[in-house]
């Protein structure tokens, strides 16, 4: 430790740290704009000038490393004079339009000018004007004259986001922040630039002029989208969610938030929200009272259970539902006498079900990923599926970790990838087997090829992490991939785990919302249609692995009870629609990918007559006269599910012996499906700003250009894709980074909902 003195206070500072860090750790505040603890040092705003003994001039605290015996004065006459001078210069070109600025009330420049600004400006000349920029539907750069050129946004893009979408062009008073190449900011983390901007230059476009910061109430909650469990501050006014901001949690989301978590709230106020219970009578939808709708649903279920048998009832839920909802759903289903309950809607391989030792999870803490030095990421659209986790991995790679990728698509991860093997889906198992063999065989030391190189990379690591992505989890040979990953991790003395698809992908297992030995899983429930379905937050044609099969099963069913926050496609096959509250309007619990149990309370009242899902299921349970439905609060439901349960002991990725055999070779084109980042769940699909981003562009049929050539097609041509009985017409596009023999078609999207399974063969022909 280095001993320094700041404002007369003796401080032991970490060697190599800067004055501003040492001061902040000791609780001494130094004014600053461009300094941010997560970004590199730029020292261009000069606001943090402090007096240092024996230094002839004030020094910037953010760029001055601590040295033994240093005496620093942050509020001496010289320091304050320097700080006031800097502030005067910063305000020279600032428009001072705080009254119409969205940042007003939460602006660093505004706050700081109270302490360091003059009463009147001495500058009477013309101020500079910077033209507004269109950065896309999320980040507003309407008032770039407000910019103080701190370059936090630029540094964020380069260092955290991984790509330089914004840059500073020109010099002196002509300097301005602008996009260089793309014209818009397309990063899936772009919203963080809004938080970082210390002034009102970059603001939130959907939030523009919606409210002032002091009008908003702040409620703590947890993200309902990806499995990271990001901590959110939901800001509300008049019972509406108007903004979502991150709550800093170093172990989870640090201080970042993905755009999905940040802007999905716009979907909460969508006109598609279901606000009254509805039942279908004589083919027409009627709004009814809760009592009527619930009785209709309960009687219908009872009728089917008594008539056709309880096993004819199936319950499906998405992994975005809360733990409480999932727990009560499985209690309800089992109470009626059926074991058919599942939340793993996009999974296609359930052969590991009996062999799986516990709930599949990340296999390590999220913070452990930062410490990993060798990573093997199998089957993951990492950047789009887990934006914040990808940023964490990017940081690890920057510090020297080696990332190895095995996947069926080669999207730019915006980080250095040590080795990669991009193969067709049916060859994933083979590649993993090769890596495993290379790890065991001595001769592999000098072998060439990606698999051997990966094995060498993994063998050389101290903290190895093998991560299976959503694509691997949805893969038809998922159990084999898991078994192979397990062996690879064991041989390289590392950890392995699943990145996890949704907010409650781990919670679903803890809530026992899986069929168990006797029940039917999600796939078989749809493959052999049931007479009745209970759907929790499910949009059958978008959330299931095989939309064709799902829709056919729904349409054939006698009774479909849909608990949903939205009035969606279910109106075509459901018989009862029960409006339930999305995560901002209900209390509940999500268990994140690392097994962290996070409960939250509702931020606003449910819209219209919507009610929290757990209450609806509780009342349904009471109406069916089932035991164990007497909880008064969601906490009581959570305790019923988790009380006395050691969550950590339930988490286990280990899988028993799985026969590994390569898939039979096929000459047909194989489908590679990603669930686009803004098509993952019901709320995101209805968020208008997110749907206006480039990431939400209409799905295309991506093929290797040689494949296109073989088919006699050209990029831009309309092609007909057929799977099973259904077909869709899409525009063909060339992507030479894809392996040959595959077509990449998005799943979970209404345009491609007529197609079949996410994996398997697909035919492409000229339309």
């Amino acid at each position: 430790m280095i001993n320094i003195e700041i404002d007369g206070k003796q401080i032991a500072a970490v060697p190599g740290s800067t004055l501003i860090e040492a001061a902040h750790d000791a609780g001494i505040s130094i004014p600053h704009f461009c300094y941010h603890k997560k970004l590199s040092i730029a020292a261009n705003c000069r606001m943090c000038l402090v007096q240092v003994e024996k230094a002839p001039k004030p020094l910037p605290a953010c760029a001055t490393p601590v040295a033994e015996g240093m005496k620093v004065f942050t509020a001496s006459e010289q320091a304050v004079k320097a700080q006031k001078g800097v502030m005067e210069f910063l305000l020279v070109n600032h428009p001072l339009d705080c009254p119409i600025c969205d940042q007003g009330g939460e602006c660093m420049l505004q706050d700081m000018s109270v302490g360091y600004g003059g009463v009147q400006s001495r500058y009477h000349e013309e101020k500079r004007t910077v033209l507004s920029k269109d950065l896309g539907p999320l980040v507003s750069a309407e008032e770039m004259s407000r910019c103080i050129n701190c370059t936090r946004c630029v540094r964020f893009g380069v260092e955290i986001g991984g790509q330089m979408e914004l840059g500073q062009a020109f010099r002196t008073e002509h300097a301005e922040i602008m996009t260089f190449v793309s014209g818009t900011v397309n990063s899936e983390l772009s919203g963080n630039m809004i938080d970082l901007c210390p002034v009102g230059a970059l603001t939130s476009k959907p939030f523009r002029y919606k409210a002032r910061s002091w009008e908003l109430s702040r409620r703590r909650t947890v993200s309902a989208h990806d499995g990271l469990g990001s901590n959110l501050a939901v800001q509300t006014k008049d019972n509406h969610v108007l903004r979502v901001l991150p709550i800093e949690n170093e172990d989870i989301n640090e201080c970042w938030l993905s755009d999905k978590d940040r802007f999905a709230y716009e979907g909460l106020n969508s006109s598609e929200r279901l606000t009254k219970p509805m039942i279908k009578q004589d083919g027409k939808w009627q709004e009814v009272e809760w009592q009527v709708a619930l009785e209709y649903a309960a009687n219908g279920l009872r009728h089917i259970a008594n008539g056709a048998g309880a096993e004819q009832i199936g319950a499906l839920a998405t992994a975005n539902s809360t733990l409480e909802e999932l727990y009560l759903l499985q209690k309800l289903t089992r109470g009626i006498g059926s074991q058919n309950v599942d939340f793993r809607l996009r999974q296609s391989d359930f052969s590991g079900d009996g062999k799986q030792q516990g709930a599949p999870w990340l296999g390590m803490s999220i913070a452990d990923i930062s410490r990993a030095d060798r990573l093997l990421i199998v089957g993951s659209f990492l950047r789009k599926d887990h934006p914040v986790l990808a940023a964490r991995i990017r940081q690890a790679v920057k510090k020297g970790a080696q990332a190895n990728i095995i996947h069926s698509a080669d999207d730019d991860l915006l980080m250095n990838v040590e080795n990669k093997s991009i193969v067709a889906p049916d060859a994933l198992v083979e590649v993993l087997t090769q890596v495993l063999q290379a790890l065991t065989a001595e001769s592999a030391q000098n072998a060439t090829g990606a698999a051997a190189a990966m094995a060498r990379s993994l063998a050389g690591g101290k903290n190895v992490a093998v991560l299976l992505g959503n694509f691997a989890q949805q893969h038809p040979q998922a159990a084999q991939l898991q078994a192979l990953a397990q062996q690879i991790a064991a041989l390289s003395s590392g950890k392995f785990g699943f990145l996890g698809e949704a907010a409650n992908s781990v919670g679903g297992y803890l809530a026992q919302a899986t069929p168990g030995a006797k029940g039917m899983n999600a796939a078989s429930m749809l493959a052999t249609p049931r007479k009745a379905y209970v759907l929790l937050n499910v949009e059958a044609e978008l959330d299931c692995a095989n939309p064709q099969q799902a829709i056919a099963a729904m349409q054939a069913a006698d009774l479909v009870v849909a608990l949903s926050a939205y009035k969606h496609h279910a109106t075509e096959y459901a018989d009862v629609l029960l409006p339930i509250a999305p995560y901002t309007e209900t209390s509940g619990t999500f268990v994140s990918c690392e097994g962290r149990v996070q409960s939250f309370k509702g931020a606003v009242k449910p819209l219209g007559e919507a009610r929290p899902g757990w209450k609806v299921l509780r009342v349904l349970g009471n109406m069916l006269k089932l035991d164990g439905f007497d909880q008064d609060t969601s906490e009581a439901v959570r305790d019923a599910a988790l009380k006395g349960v050691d969550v950590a002991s339930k988490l286990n990725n280990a899988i028993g012996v799985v026969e590994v055999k390569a898939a039979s070779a096929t000459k047909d084109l194989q489908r590679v499906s990603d669930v686009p980042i803004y098509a993952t769940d019901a709320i995101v699909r209805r968020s208008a700003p997110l749907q206006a981003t480039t990431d939400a562009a209409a799905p295309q049929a991506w093929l290797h250009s040689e494949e296109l050539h073989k088919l006699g097609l050209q990029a831009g041509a309309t092609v007909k894709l057929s799977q099973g009985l259904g077909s869709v017409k899409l525009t063909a596009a060339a992507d030479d980074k894809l392996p040959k023999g595959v077509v990449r078609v998005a799943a979970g999207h209404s345009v491609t909902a007529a197609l079949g399974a996410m994996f398997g063969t697909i035919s492409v022909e000229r339309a």
Partner: protein
Amino acid sequence: MEKISHFFKSFLLVELLKGMAVTGKHLFSHKITVQYPEEKTPQSFRFRGLHAQRRYASGEERCIGCKLCEAVCPALAIKIEVAEREDGSRRTTQYDINLTKCIFCGFCEESCPVDAIVETRIFEYHGESQKDLYYTKPMLLAVGDKHEAQIAKDRAADAKYR
């Protein structure tokens, strides 16, 4: 000594004469009672009466919806909703003052960065129900339009003290 002084004072009715002198003085001095409503007292240019919303000479409303008046109002009498107008500018879609709540402290006027909300010299307004004293944006603008000349004059007179 005091007793003697008291004896003569009461004997010669000095107190009474003193009192009568005051009465007499006021009987002949300038009258200050104002015969309201025929006559009116002079008003300061800082008089804080009925609120008005002002416009610029171009006819553009001044208010930019910064909500500072709403925030500063100690009686919570102001309610504002803001949206982006087609031309991209920040404008109020709702600006209501509940005059039954208002305590006429003038904070709203003081906080306004564009001199949009002002308190005029008008104090003779009434309403037959609470509803009548709930002033909406068009009503406030109408007051401003009607009395703009006086309002502008008063602001000009006050300018050198601000």
